[in-house]
């Protein structure tokens, strides 16, 4: 950097003499150049005073007005938008009310039974309330095969079932698989040996296709898979359930 360039730099940084600084800054110092340009330094002083003031007045008022035109939303549009949103909200509110009513009508407060065959639990529910929880026995999930080729798989019936009837002091009519299981000869259909009292407890709730909710002699096995498909309950729980349900009560086994 020669001496001349150094002087220019110093003046631009405000360390040079004012008159010389002005002269140099117009050509080489950008910040000062802009100020000189904006204040119209090239014009004679009187003309500058009389021209610069009105020029900037007009320019800045124009900018102010331009600011006005860039307002985000005119108030009338805002009003109509709000009105439209109010309408939309009211409509949605009305629709939701209708849907809620529909769901309420579709629902009910009826008592129902739920049997969970994985955890071997029965729940008696009414609406959202659990009225009773009990350990149950459900299907053993085992096969029994007869020499003649017949076979049975002992699983509780899954799905939505309905109470079809109720019995006091039910009698067990031994099916063929019971004899096959014990390697006994199968007696004729109405053989008195098939009618066995006092093994199903004091009550039975009929679910159709021979499946029942009933009592058991094997109370220590409650909570496990040990039945031939029926749902076994302890005596006290069975009595409560028996007295609570009626024909048509839904039973969900899953």
């Amino acid at each position, binding site marked *: 950097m020669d001496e001349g360039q150094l002087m220019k730099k110093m003046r631009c940084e405000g360390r040079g003499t004012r008159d010389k600084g002005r002269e140099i800054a117009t050509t080489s110092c950008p910040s000062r150049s802009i100020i000189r340009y*904006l*204040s119209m330094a090239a014009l004679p*002083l009187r003309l*500058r*005073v009389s021209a*610069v*003031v009105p020029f*900037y*007045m007009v320019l*800045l*008022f124009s*900018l*102010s007005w331009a*600011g*006005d035109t860039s307002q985000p939303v005119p*108030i009338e549009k*805002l*009003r109509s*938008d*709000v009105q439209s*949103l*109010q309408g*939309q*909200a009211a409509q*949605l*509110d009305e*629709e*939701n009310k209708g*849907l*809620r009513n*529909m*769901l309420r009508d*579709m*629902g*009910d407060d009826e008592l*129902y039974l*739920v049997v*969970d*065959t*994985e*955890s071997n639990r029965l729940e008696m*529910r009414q609406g*959202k309330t659990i009225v009773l929880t009990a350990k149950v026995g459900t299907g053993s999930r085992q096969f029994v095969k007869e020499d003649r080729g017949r076979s049975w798989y002992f699983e509780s019936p899954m799905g*939505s079932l309905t109470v079809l009837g109720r019995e006091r002091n039910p009698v067990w009519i031994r099916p063929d698989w019971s004899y096959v299981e014990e390697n006994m000869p199968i007696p004729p259909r109405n053989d008195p040996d098939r009618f066995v009292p006092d093994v199903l407890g004091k009550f039975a709730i009929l679910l159709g296709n021979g499946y029942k909710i009933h009592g058991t002699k094997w109370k220590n096995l409650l909570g496990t898979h040990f039945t031939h498909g029926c749902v076994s309950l302890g005596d006290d729980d069975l009595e409560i359930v028996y007295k609570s349900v009626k024909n048509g009560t*839904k039973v*969900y086994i*899953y």
Partner: protein
Amino acid sequence: MERRVQGDNTKKIIWLIIWFSVFLMGADGGDLNGEERGKLLKQQKQLSTRIETLKREQEFLVFQRTMYASDSKYIIINSSAKTGRLKYKNRVLKDFHIKLVSGRASRLTRGALTLTQKIEGAKGSKLLVFNKSLVLQGKNAPSAKIEAGMPRFSLSKKDFRSVYYAIEPGAKVYIIF
């Protein structure tokens, strides 16, 4: 000397004009409708929020109406309450608790998902995968290779077994917060 004083005055005037204009621009918001505008903007914001809430509620109500008419079991998960509910039509079959074991709960979006995979691992580990968006598993189930970051919730072993065998691929889960 006189020229210098006059030049300084010119600059002062320019600065005054600039400040005056800025003041005018600032005064722009103080028009007669300013108060009403403020109220309307606030109302607009509140209504938009309310509409969003109502839309979400409607979506859930429609989902429930559909499931009441369907013959399929479904699950409703409340991720903030950390609870789940297995349902069939309008009936509750099971209530259970859930716990986030991995992934980010924030990745869950409100709405319905479909059970896409029932995975049964070699060591008896089981997983329920919903739309690459949610995994349900039993407590302490060994980790299986599932997309990283996918929220994974655990249930008690008993509850999970019940839920696992209760639903089939295609079953729905609805996430609420």
